[in-house]
């Protein structure tokens, strides 16, 4: 099960309502793009959903949440810390097992950064850091992806490559995107957010970029 059905979602900051109350129901297999102006509440909605479905989702937050002083390998490995015993994690921190480093390396090579596996996250560029956070989510191997602008720092071809990969690897996804073309190309359903409410909710094949523009 990787879909969810959430009702009465609300969020307030400093007494001011920023989201909802709204309901969002996502069926297994759906690829949802959240679109809308910055500040419309997309990030907050992603957070809210994550709080509700925590254990079944992989999250790529906007600020990535990398541990800067750890190498790329460990940042990716952290996606599945719950799958191994504590002693195994402790040993891995000092000296990774061949099996894990093989798996992470393969994953990184799909993101075209296999040569960076042993470099500290602090010394990576913005786009590389974003790909590490994506690798961590992929490594988690859950059915549901929650991502907040996962390709904002990547150039055109790379952004397409990553979006393709995310579509392929996650059964269900909810991705906040400001790039309308990417949203239409890689998602099956577009949800437009405006002023903390759902202002648009249509299958993407029924929409053109012009239909989405009024939201911005």
């Amino acid at each position, binding site marked *: 099960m990787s879909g969810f059905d959430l009702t009465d979602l609300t969020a307030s900051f400093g007494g001011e309502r920023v989201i909802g109350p709204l309901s969002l129901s996502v069926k297994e297999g759906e690829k949802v793009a959240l679109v809308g102006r910055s500040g419309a509440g997309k990030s907050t909605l992603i957070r809210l959903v994550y709080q509700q479905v925590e254990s079944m989702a992989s999250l790529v937050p906007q600020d990535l949440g990398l541990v800067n*002083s750890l190498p790329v390998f460990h940042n990716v490995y*952290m996606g599945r810390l*719950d799958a191994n015993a504590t002693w195994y*994690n*402790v040993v891995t*921190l000092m000296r990774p097992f061949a099996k894990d480093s093989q798996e992470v390396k393969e994953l990184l090579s799909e993101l075209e950064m296999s040569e960076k596996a042993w470099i500290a996250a602090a010394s990576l560029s913005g786009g590389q850091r974003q790909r590490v956070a994506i690798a961590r989510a992929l490594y988690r191997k859950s059915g549901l992806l929650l991502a907040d602008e996962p390709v904002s720092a990547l150039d055109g071809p790379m952004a397409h490559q990553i979006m393709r990969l995310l579509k392929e690897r996650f059964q269900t996804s909810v991705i906040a995107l400001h790039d309308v073309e990417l949203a239409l190309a890689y998602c099956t359903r577009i949800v437009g957010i405006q002023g903390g409410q759902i202002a648009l909710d249509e299958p993407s094949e029924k929409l053109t970029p012009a239909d989405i523009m009024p939201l911005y």
Partner: protein
Amino acid sequence: MLSSPIVRTSLIFTAIALVGLFFADIAITSANPWKDLGRFFFGIITPDFFSTEGLATALLRTVAFAFVGVALGSACGFLLALVYRAYPVRIFCAFIRAIHELFWALIFLQFFGFHPLTGVLAIAIPYSGIFAKVYSEILEEADPEPGRLLPPGTSVISTFLYARIPDCWVQMRTYTAYRLECGLRSSAILGFVGLPTLGFYLESAFSQGHYSDAGAMLILFYVLIATLPLWVKPKLLPVYILGAPFFLGEGLPIVWGNVTRFFTQDIVPSPLKNEEGWAGMGTWLGDLFINQAMPGIWNTVILTQIALVATGIIALLAFPLISTHFGGPVRRTSGHVFLVILRSTPEYILAYILLQLWGPSMLPAVVALALHNGGIIGHLIGRQSSSIQLRPDAPKGVNRYTYELVPRVYRSFLAFLFYRWEIIMRETAILGILGIYTLGFYVDSAIQNIQFDKAMVLILITASLNIGVDILGRFIRKKLALQTMPTC
């Protein structure tokens, strides 16, 4: 200018110190102070490295006690930092760090005697309290986001090791290395109460007037501290830590009967021991308060306030010595050497030397505290001032100092000064052991008279006074919005 709370605070503290000067006992009482001082400096420039065979051993023991004490303190402090949120843990840590290393040593000497454990615990216990506080602050500042992103069900230990420690590691290592330097100073002064470290040999060299021997010890001590980054390497650390316990010396064996006696008899207040009841206890405490605690507190506070302002003056005068905005490379290099000497010499040793030269009064203590602490703050502020970019046509000389630099560094200067307030008070109390009438004097006399019950009460009073000043200092720093990293 007067409307600025920072200026007002500075003026109030200066006024308090000036009033304190009227009550303080400031005098040079020795017959030939300048001649003695001259002989001492002659000793420093004609060091004799080979007269005492004990010199090498003393240095080795000083390093060994520092390593074992700091390593133990940092391990315990780390464990305490993990539970530092709990209020009782905070109180406990504040309490153990409010008691000076020398007081701890005096306590342990009463029941462990001259066993190495006395010196190790005297360093490890107060350092645990300090490490716990600083480590927990570093851990708290770490970004909580990576921890939140971990899959639910990740074990607590894995979460801690992956999401917390890595980003704190460098800061914790830097602070621990810095503490090691403090540990060397603490270890050296433990010799003054009879442990086999540098202070012991320094005291005997001085009392016999062997100034060249004393000079050699001081020079070696400076070299030891200045070369710390060269011989303390991360890879060698395990070797040092595992090896150090074997170089603490034999000492004397622990007599366990003494330990039992200390806790069941010595420190029990005498009216309770003699079954005089609570009335007797009241008289006993009242007597202790009026005749020892009150004069001790009075002198400690006066001396602290004068030393605090004197520290500030020295720091403000000293920072241009190393600032890149003044003078050439020659002056800056000699400035660096001068400040390294000031901050590497423990105030206790400085005070001891000055006391030998000038005779007993508060003056040697004030000068020692001001030079040591002023050297530390001057170094920090000087380094900070070098990072300030001045406009190309900025004024030079005194105008540059007063208009461009002092206003820019004054906030952090005050932050450091108020941070060190509690440290200065802790040191002031301990200088009483040298014969100045602060709290340490009364503690030491009580111990000399084998009145451990009184000594313990006085140590508790000293600790409370330190905690009080610490809270007040933090309150003022918060009120004036001053921030700083810890120094020792």
